[in-house]
Structures are given as structure tokens and as C-alpha cells.
């Protein structure tokens, strides 16, 4: 069963007078529970594709369906709700809220969902324990290493049990040991919680973990490899 369905998705950016064709009619389908990497060189369209799936950006044409919901039939507020309840994000630069502690960052999404404080705390602590940050609840992002921050970001992305986690180059700022540890955590989450992970990456280690690699080049799918 597909969790993501894209049909002939096109996107063109305007940089001054220059038109950049970021996506040129991409069609793909990603199964629920997948561990998928969108790979390719810079400018190939992988981050744009991830943004489209996450509803952060709108396609010029084509059809995107996430969790059975068709984006073209939804307004911005509905897409924002879809992001809140169904999609988790992990960014290359961690992008935690700097004024909140690790546990507050993880709780934040649940707070937006209206989950009671007791429940939030219980779940946030449990997920931070799972990613190996049991003694770092009250540390602010500036007091954590890059790897620890990215683990908080993963915890934040999966704590509210989304259907999909979109991870944009999650290991790019990490050393190989830390990156490997993080990928193991995400793989475990994928296997245990059945959360679908979609990465944009050109890190070979991520591709090693991925069960499916979709290679993009110049806004088109160059190769779709299922291991």
C-alpha cells in the first residue's frame, strides 16, 4: 500500500530571469513502512521533491497524494495540519528551537497537537531514552553535540507517531560514527514502529541502509533501485 504517490510532478523556480526546472515530471510511489533514499548530486531535485511530499512547497503541476490525501484538493491550513499529525521532519542543520531544552523540543510538536502535559512528558522522555539521551533532557541545543542534536531532532520527528519522516541530508553535518549511530536509530524506528523514512542524501552510508534508492538527475528519475 502506497503512503506517497506522485504523478508527473513538475516544479520550476525563477532565479531572476533564469528558469530552473527543479522537477521535470516525476512520478513515483513509496510503500508504507519504506526506508527510501532520494539520491543524486546537488541540484538534482531531491530536496525539492522532499519539500513537495512534506507540503512545504507546491508543485506547478502534477498530483501528490500523501496518506491518501490529495494536496491539490487541500488548502494551506489543511496541509499544515497534515504536516502536524502525519509528517515528521529531520533537517540537515538539526534546526531545533534554540530556546527550548531537549525534552521541550520533543514535547513541542505534541503540544501543538493538544496532547496533555503529563502524556507529553512521558512520551518525550521515553523517546529520548530510545535515542540514547536519557541524561540530557534539560540540555539546550547549544549544550549538545551535533549528533545529540540530530538525535533530538529524530525524537521530535517520530514522537507523535507520524506516518512518514522526511529527512533532508540528516548525516551531512555528522562524522561517520555519529551518522552511523543515528541511522541505526532511524532504522530501528522504521522496523519497530513501521514509520516510513524518506531521505534526501548523497551519503553512501545512508544509501547502504536504504532498502530502496531513487536516483535523481536534472529533476528526473535516473534510476529506481530496490534492494
Amino acid at each position, binding site marked *: 500500500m502506497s503512503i506517497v504517490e506522485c504523478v508527473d510532478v513538475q516544479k520550476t523556480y525563477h532565479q531572476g530571469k533564469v528558469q530552473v526546472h527543479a522537477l521535470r515530471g516525476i512520478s513515483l510511489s513509496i510503500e508504507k513502512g519504506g526506508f527510501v533514499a532520494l539520491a543524486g548530486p546537488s541540484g538534482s531535485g531531491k530536496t525539492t521533491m522532499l*519539500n513537495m511530499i*512534506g507540503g*512545504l*512547497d507546491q508543485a506547478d503541476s502534477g498530483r501528490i497524494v500523501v496518506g491518501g490525501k490529495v494536496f491539490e484538493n487541500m488548502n494551506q*491550513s489543511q496541509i*499544515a*495540519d497534515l*504536516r*502536524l*499529525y502525519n509528517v*515528521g*521532519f529531520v*533537517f540537515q542543520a538539526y*534546526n531545533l*528551537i*534554540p*530556546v*527550548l531544552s531537549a525534552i*521541550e523540543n520533543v*514535547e*513541542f*510538536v505534541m*503540544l*501543538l*497537537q493538544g496532547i496533555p502535559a503529563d502524556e507529553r512528558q512521558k512520551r518525550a522522555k521515553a523517546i529520548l531514552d530510545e535515542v540514547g539521551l536519557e541524561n540530557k533532557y534539560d540540555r539546550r541545543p547549544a549544550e549538545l553535540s551535533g549528533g545529540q542534536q540530530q538525535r533530538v531532532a529524530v525524537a*521530535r520527528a517520530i514522537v507523535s507517531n507520524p506516518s512518514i519522516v522526511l529527512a533532508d541530508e540528516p548525516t551531512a553535518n555528522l562524522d561517520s560514527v555519529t551518522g552511523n549511530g543515528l541511522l541505526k536509530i532511524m532504522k530501528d524506528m522504521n522496523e519497530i514502529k513501521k514509520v516510513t523514512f524518506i531521505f534526501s542524501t548523497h551519503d553512501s552510508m545512508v544509501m547502504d541502509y536504504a532498502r530502496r534508492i531513487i536516483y535523481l538527475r536534472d529533476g528526473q528519475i535516473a534510476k529506481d533501485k530496490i534492494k
Partner: protein
Amino acid sequence: MPIDLKMAWRNIWRNPRRTFLTIAAIAFASIILVFMLSFQFGSYEAMINSSVKIQTGHLQIQAPGYKDKQSIHMVVTDPEAVGAFLNNSSEVAAYTFRARAFSLVSSEERTYGIMITGIDPSSEAGVSTLKTSIRRGKYLFEENPNQEIVPALIGELLARNLQVGLGDELTVLGQGRDGSIAASVIHIKGIYRSGLDEFDRASIHIPLQQFQDIYSMRGAIHEVVVVGKSLRQVPEIKKRLLAGIKTTDSKSSLRVLDWMELMPGLRQAIEMDLFSGIIFYIILIIVVAFSILNTFLMAIIERTKEFGVMMAIGTTRGRLTRLLLIESFSMTVIGMVTGAVLGSLITWYFQVNGIDISGSSELLSHYGISGRLYPKLSLASIISGPMAVMIITFLAALYPALKIRRLRPVEAISHV
């Protein structure tokens, strides 16, 4: 603590120096406003009280049209009935009767046209500062009004112009209420200096009873001068006098005029001064508002990526706007409260010790105030300025806060 408040509080201290400077600007504006408004209110009250005590009282009861025409024929015919009513009015602190006539007064050397005022020496002392303004000689209180000699008090400047001194005689020539010629010789018993040049240059006071004889007043007077227990009570006293006075003199329909009607020049001077003050305050507040605007525009530029991420994970634009408004409101409240407290303390110090204004304010000296001036702290002076700062800075913060609503997550996240 709710997460929005927690985040707002932590956010405002992310750049402590900038936050401190912004709060300091708000506090400084609040201090200036509290002090200046208290200073203005204090000086206005001093001007009013000084003018009221020298000249008009808080209120006057007169015949209709007397204020404009100053005709000797426009009289209060039964002052005793009015006095009886005033005696029963608890808000009235004191009152006195006066009669006035424009007359020519001559010394051996010179002649001037001036206002002769008949006063009841005893009750006048409770209403005006005339008695305490005597610089040479004695007040009329100690004289016997039944004597043939008409004792008089004369303004220092008038005495100088007429080239007379204590014990000298002056010839007075005017018109009586019945149209007859009013003529008398008065003897200078006291010379006063009120501080109000206009008053000291053109007035002579004699006992009311003798004034009534000289000017054929037949017991009538021109003004019942009333002083309330405080300036704030004037409107209430006026309302009660208007209602009560109808029963005492229904024929002449006496008028009750308050100090603003009696001294329109003073009221206009206060309004002008307040108006120019308000323009200065608005400029000051706008400068502070720009400081807030700058702080938040900088915050938005610095935190665009963060806002993008927050939107990506599900934060609504409304919540981000609210967060920024809480931040601006918190800084404004801290600055405002600090400023109001410090401003009140500084003002209180000067309220106790006064400010030396000798020779520095032409406006105030014109109204008989010289020496030290005392600012007057009030709820209005403590609250109104800082509240204006708060409202305007809050409005200034609305622009950057609403700017967030136009952010698109994908562009915000890629913001460098």
C-alpha cells in the same frame, strides 16, 4: 508556565544587550513622561492656585453679564442670602464678598485709571493671599471701618507709579451705582506685592462697607468669591451652587462662574503648554517605537529559518505572531514598569524638595509663581505616559509580527 510565555521570555534574552537597550529606551521614555507630566500638572495646579488665591477664587457668583461688562450696575443685591446658602454648603471652604469700580486715582504727582475693590477684610483673608502679600504697612483687618478715614491697600507697582508711600493720601473719583459722582480721599495703610505685575499695577483695596458708602451700593456687591476645599471639587461645587443659587435670588438669575471662565487666559495658557508638551511626548514615544520596530525586524531576519522550521513542524502563523507579540509586550511591560517606578521615585524626590525655577519660567512668573516649583505625582501622571508608550510600542511591534504571516516555510527554511 505556558510554553508560549516560556519561549517568549527566553527569546527576549537571546540577545541580552539589544534587549537591555530596548528596555532601557522604553524605561527612559517612561521616566521622562512620568516626571514631565507630574511637573506640568504640578505647575498648572500652582498656577491655578496662585491665580485663584490672588484674584478670582475657585468660583464666583455674579450678576449676569458682569464678567464681560464689569458695570457697577450689575450687582448681587442680596449677598447675605447667598452667604446663608454658602454657610450650609459643606464643600465650600471659604467665601467673601467684593465690590469693584473703575476709578481715577490721583496723587499729588500723577493720575491713573485703576480698579478699586471693596473687600471684607476678615473673610478676604480666608479666601485670598492679599493679607500675606503685604510688604509694608498693615492689612485692613486691624482698622476700624467706621472711622472717617478710608484706609486702603495699594499694589507696590501702582504706589511706585503714583509716587506715594505709607500714610499718603489719594483722591478717588468714580461713578456710583446710582449714577452719582463717587469721590473720596483714601489713606494708604498697606502696600502689597502679589507677584502678579498686572494686579500690583492697577488695584487698590478698601473696606467693603466704605466702598458701598462711597459708590452708593445700597448694600449690594459685585462678586461672591468662593473657595472650595480642593481644585478637583470645583465642578461638583459649581453644580450644587447653580442648583442652590436659584432659590436665593430668583429675580436676577445669578451666574456661577468657575476659574476657567473667570480666567480664560490661564486656561488657554495651560492648554497651549499641555499641547506643546504632548507633541514633545509623541515625538519621544515615536523614537522609542522605532527602537522596538528595529529590534523585532532584526529578530525576524535573524530567526527566519527558525520560524520556517517551526512552521514545517506544524506551528501556525497565528501562533508565531502571538509569540512575537508576547515578546514585544513583555519587553514593553518591563520597560514601562521600570520607568514608571524610577520616574515616580525621581518625581517624588522633587515633589518633596522642589525645583528651583527662579527667573527661569516667564509663563509661571506671569501667574505669580517664582522660587521653587513642586511636581505633583498623581495616578494620571504615573500611568498615562507609560501607557501611551506601551500602546504605541505595541502597535509598532504589530508590523514585524504580522510580517511573519507572509513567510512561506520553504523559503524561510532556506533563509541564510
